[in-house]
């Protein structure tokens, strides 16, 4: 995200202002489209990290709510069967699909390259 923001040239916004765009219009038409890949990528990575997180989630969950990693841990304490492998495979598929869909709209290759 920071890398993406640093990559945006200030003079591009000034160019928009000189052409008659108010600061709000310049932000919407120029700045936002330029930092959009960074925002999406940052959101994506944050999601992946927090989705897989176990320690903090264990501390934060209230009774009645649980996250998938916690459920997996609890399940593993009592049984050993291929269900967990199946769940993991589905997880990988879900995240993979998420990344592919994101890549359709913003080029992740570009974001990673910039960093």
């Amino acid at each position: 995200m920071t890398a993406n923001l640093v990559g945006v040239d200030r003079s591009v916004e000034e160019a928009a202002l000189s052409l008659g765009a108010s600061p709000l219009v310049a932000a919407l038409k120029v700045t936002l489209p330029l930092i959009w890949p960074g925002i999406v990528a940052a959101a994506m990575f944050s999601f992946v990290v927090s989705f897989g997180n176990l320690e903090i989630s264990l501390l934060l969950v209230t009774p009645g709510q649980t996250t998938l990693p916690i459920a997996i841990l609890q399940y593993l304490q009592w049984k050993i069967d291929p269900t967990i492998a199946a769940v993991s495979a589905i997880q990988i598929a879900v995240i993979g699909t998420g990344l592919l869909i994101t890549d359709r709209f913003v080029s992740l290759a570009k974001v990673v390259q910039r960093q």
Partner: protein
Amino acid sequence: MATVTLNHVSKRFGEFVAVDDFSLEVAEGELLVLLGPSGCGKTTTLRMIAGFTDASAGAVRIRDRDVTHEPPYRRNIGVVFQNYALFPHLNVFENVAFGLRRRRTADEEIARRVARALALVKLDDLGQRLPRQLSGGQQQRVAVARALIIEPDVLLLDEPLSNLDAKLRHDVRQELRRLQQLLKITTILVTHDQDEAMSMGDRLVVIERGRIQQIGSPQDLYRTPRNPFVASFIGQANFIEGRSERNGLLFVTPSGLSIACAPSDAQARTLMIRPEAIDLLDTSAGDANVFPATVEVVTYLGSTSELTLRLTASETIIVTKPSSTAVPGNWAPGQHLYVRIDPSSAVGIAPE
């Protein structure tokens, strides 16, 4: 009528005075060059005219309007940035159309005017390309088309040629000048390159350390620079220290040279002589203003050759001659000859 007027404009950054009390007028259709070494305040001046930087004092007027406190988007200006600052996510067509879209121009008219603007900068077929698919020279032309399409009151060019290679720079310089004269658009160009300034400007403003040193046509500045800084920044110059006599018609050095010069300030302490205004002779021939000299260094520069000549123990001068007359062996270090200084091109300069 002046299109742009600066009235005692200053800019301070804390203690540092970047621009110190600038007053100047840019006439309708004129190309004015702000010329100076880097950090002299020329870009700050341009940014104040554009409205990107607030003036600390003074007033900026564009046409009849005091725009000192107006934001850039209400000034009707066209700016070409040093790095072009094209919108990387928009294609060439949308880059150029940006200003018109902000003005809510109808689609058909946008299409027509963008086509005309792209034809003007000879990029007719590239409307659908993205900026990163263009060469540096093409990007620069898109930036020019984008700035011109809104028919700005004044076009501001911030070192527009400095990112181009030397050969292309020469072509683009001619091209920009042609466009500017064709459209008769009032233009302010910022540069540190004196060749660029001389070849493009109707008038030049020479700036050093935040102060205007001199304003004038290229010819004025070259022939009668007001101080040694202007003389050495605009072209090459020889400086000889001494004092003026006979009401500024004769310049006498401590080493005993008496050089007839153009009518100059009687307070002059420096004599400026352009390297190409000095003739080389084999004999003294009894002419006026002829002095013996010894060749110290001969430097071959292609179309010209540069000779360093020693006049006295304390004075050397540099003379340039077309290389056609400087056949190797014609002049050699250690050779004795005579120099004739044309009085009309020797100008005395008084200290500030």
